[in-house]
């Protein structure tokens, strides 16, 4: 077991190192000159030279990289060139916002997708099946930004039920926090709900034709009990796997939704940083994201080993 964990931990370090090189090189390929952005409209040549020197942009790429990674190893992700705030502080502020949005979107998508999938399978080839399929298809084919703007115009501007944009932290006022995030979470979770609905329907149709379901019915169990306790329990296994895989997609999918609803999360941070060539923010955000994902995977592997005795001896 120790060697297994040792290998996993040893893999963590080179992976992060490779990510750091990749993100550094990729952003250098972006066209445009950060110094031109930072020098302001007047673009004074002396100021441009000063900025290049201050930000090490006038040094060779390799030197720039080692300067940056050296600071990162000391826990310093640098300062945002644009707003002059520590990148670590920006990341710590933004990550929870996006995590809340993704979590809410996930809950919404499961709450809508799974019951609709069950209904569609149980009422196969009826009016309800067609309605559920139609909704699923619409969910899959509706662009997020269009749905977002439509919701804002109808729910916020016309009906005045919810604020059109912005964000309030859960810790400050949970009601207001839900009010500001419910629409973006719905938009973000909408496509996943459709995917879950279709997978649940398919898995349920297979399950409902199995012998154990026929046996359950033959025993005289109520149909509700047959569907929920016998068929659904088995049908949910692939659906749960899919939902778990899609959670990561929700985090990255939040980029567009955050733009539409002006939510100050991770997605908006990185989009603004890319458009303003704010390299330290781009590098910091990607590095932190990669570290979180890899770290959580490592943690999960460790827990698997503890939970599954067979892995300890393998």
């Amino acid at each position, binding site marked *: 077991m120790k060697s297994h964990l040792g290998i996993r931990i040893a893999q963590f370090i080179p992976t992060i190192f490779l990510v750091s090189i990749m993100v550094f090189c990729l952003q250098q390929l972006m066209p*445009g000159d950060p110094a031109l*952005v930072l020098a302001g409209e*007047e673009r004074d040549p002396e100021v441009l030279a000063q900025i290049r020197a201050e930000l090490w942009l006038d040094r060779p790429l390799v030197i720039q990289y080692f300067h940056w990674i050296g600071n990162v190893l000391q826990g310093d992700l640098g300062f945002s060139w*644009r707003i002059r705030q520590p990148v670590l502080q920006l990341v710590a502020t933004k*990550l929870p916002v996006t995590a809340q949005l993704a979590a809410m979107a996930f809950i919404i998508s499961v709450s809508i997708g799974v019951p609709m999938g069950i209904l569609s399978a149980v009422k196969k080839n009826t009016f309800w099946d067609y309605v559920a399929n139609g909704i699923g298809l619409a969910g899959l084919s509706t662009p997020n930004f269009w749905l977002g703007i439509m919701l804002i115009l109808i729910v916020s501007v016309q009906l005045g039920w919810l604020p059109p944009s912005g964000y309030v932290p859960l*810790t400050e006022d949970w009601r207001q926090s839900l009010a500001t995030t419910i629409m973006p979470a719905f938009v973000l979770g909408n496509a996943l709900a459709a995917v879950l609905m279709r997978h649940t329907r398919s898995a349920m149709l297979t399950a409902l034709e199995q012998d154990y379901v026929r046996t359950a019915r033959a025993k005289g169990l109520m149909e509700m009990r047959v569907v929920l306790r016998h068929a659904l329990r088995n049908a949910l296994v692939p659906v749960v796997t899919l939902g778990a895989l899609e959670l990561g997609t929700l985090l990255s999918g939040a980029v567009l939704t955050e733009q539409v609803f*002006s939510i100050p999360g991770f997605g908006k941070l990185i989009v603004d940083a890319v458009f303003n060539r704010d390299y330290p923010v781009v590098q910091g955000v990607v590095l932190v994201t990669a570290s979180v994902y890899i770290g959580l995977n490592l943690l*999960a592997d460790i827990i698997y080993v503890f939970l599954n005795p067979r892995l300890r001896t393998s």
Partner: protein
Amino acid sequence: MRPILLLAAAAITIPLTLQAQTNPPQTLRIGIADDADALDPTLSRTLVGRFVFASLCDKLVDIDAKLNIVPQLAASYAWIDSKTLEFKLRPDMKFHDMTPVDAEAVKFSLERHLTMAGSTRKGEIGTLDHVEVVNPLTVRLVLKSPNSPFLAQLSDRSGMIVSPKASLAAGANFGQHPVCAGPFKFTERVPQDRIVVDRFAEYWDAGNIHVNRVVYQPIVDNTIRLANLRAGTLEMAERIAPTDIAQVKADPKLRAEIFDGLGYQSLSFNIGNGRQPRTAMMRDSKVRQAFAAAIDRQAINDVVYSGLFTPIAQGVPPASPFYAPEIKPAGRDVALAKKLLAEAGIKTPLTVELMITNSADQRQTGEVIQSMAAEAGFDVKLRATEFVTALKAQTDGDYEVFLIGWSGRADADGNMYNFLHTDTPLNDAHYSSATVDSLLEQTRAETDVTVRRGLYGKIAAQLNLDLPVMYIYSPKVLIGMNAKISGFTPIADGLIRIKGLKMGQ
């Protein structure tokens, strides 16, 4: 298991989120079109940053609705000679940290603009030689050479005075907690979400401030900014899209303020920067004149901007006292365009590459130009480019024609000199004309407005022959606001000044 862990991590980090604040009565929420950069007057470079500074940082002088220079922190100013400008400060003024606003602070701030690493003010006041403190309330600015536009530079960020004590303590991090002498003091900033400033009770003109708090909310999308205004979650929104003005006017709860701005939109023709071999458009002013003759400025204004903007043929906007009314935009003349192309010996269609930035209105403008120019024999290829990439292409000379605007400055010099004088930083077209250079230098040395206006008229006439740039229109400032707001003063720089503003009930 893994998603559960992810959620657990999120739950742990959620309490790290910054605290939102409950706003006091008389809170004004203003939707701005982008997030500001560093809130340091020396380093700031964005227009939205200037909106925030309008509340935070007073300047030595300001501009009024007619673009006259009026005292702000200064009680008065006077030119002692052609190179010496003297300011007498108002007595008993305080910075937000309660330190005094005095001549030493003025000297400190101006020297900071000139010497701080990365200062974007350096180019604006580079002609300043040194600052002399005469007494605690009198300061003299001595220039290297006569420069009449210098005073107008002090009506923007270059004239903002910061607390020396706070600046020295914060160093390069001053922008995280700026301390100035404006009507509002900095409270908090959540990047990309809000900048909050609160009323400063010790402000020198506190009687004219009727708002307790201002919250600046960056909302990039025009539609969403307008939706917030209509839903009542904003009281004011800047840069309403021209196509949305009708909606604002139709809503009884809202009001639109429309007035002349300081900027312009133009076609910049690359004359001699980079590209080899030079194209016919780069080589021959007749080809550029033909292109200009094929374009109907009013049609662009009508199709893309709902007819709200003002077609121009000079870089000085109509709002400016230096605007030359005799320089009128020529009408479209396709026959003339064809004749000029024939005289230049051009076989049509002549392929021309027009670089545009990748926004909806710029693409539309490009398409209208493409369509009009085609009738005269130009085959315009549009090159839609993201703004920062386009900026780099422009400075490198990697363009033939570029549809590019300028936000404008209070003095016409800020719209002209650095773009057109030989070897100046913004002269990306590498245009060089001894006549225009001489006229531009004369405008700097001259202080009489009428004489300067005449000089700018001559410059415009010469430019319309040489055509390193074709001015298309001057945009209007479009601000939407709650109908209950009163006391708004439209000033051509487009900034929202809170002084005198009342929110109503």
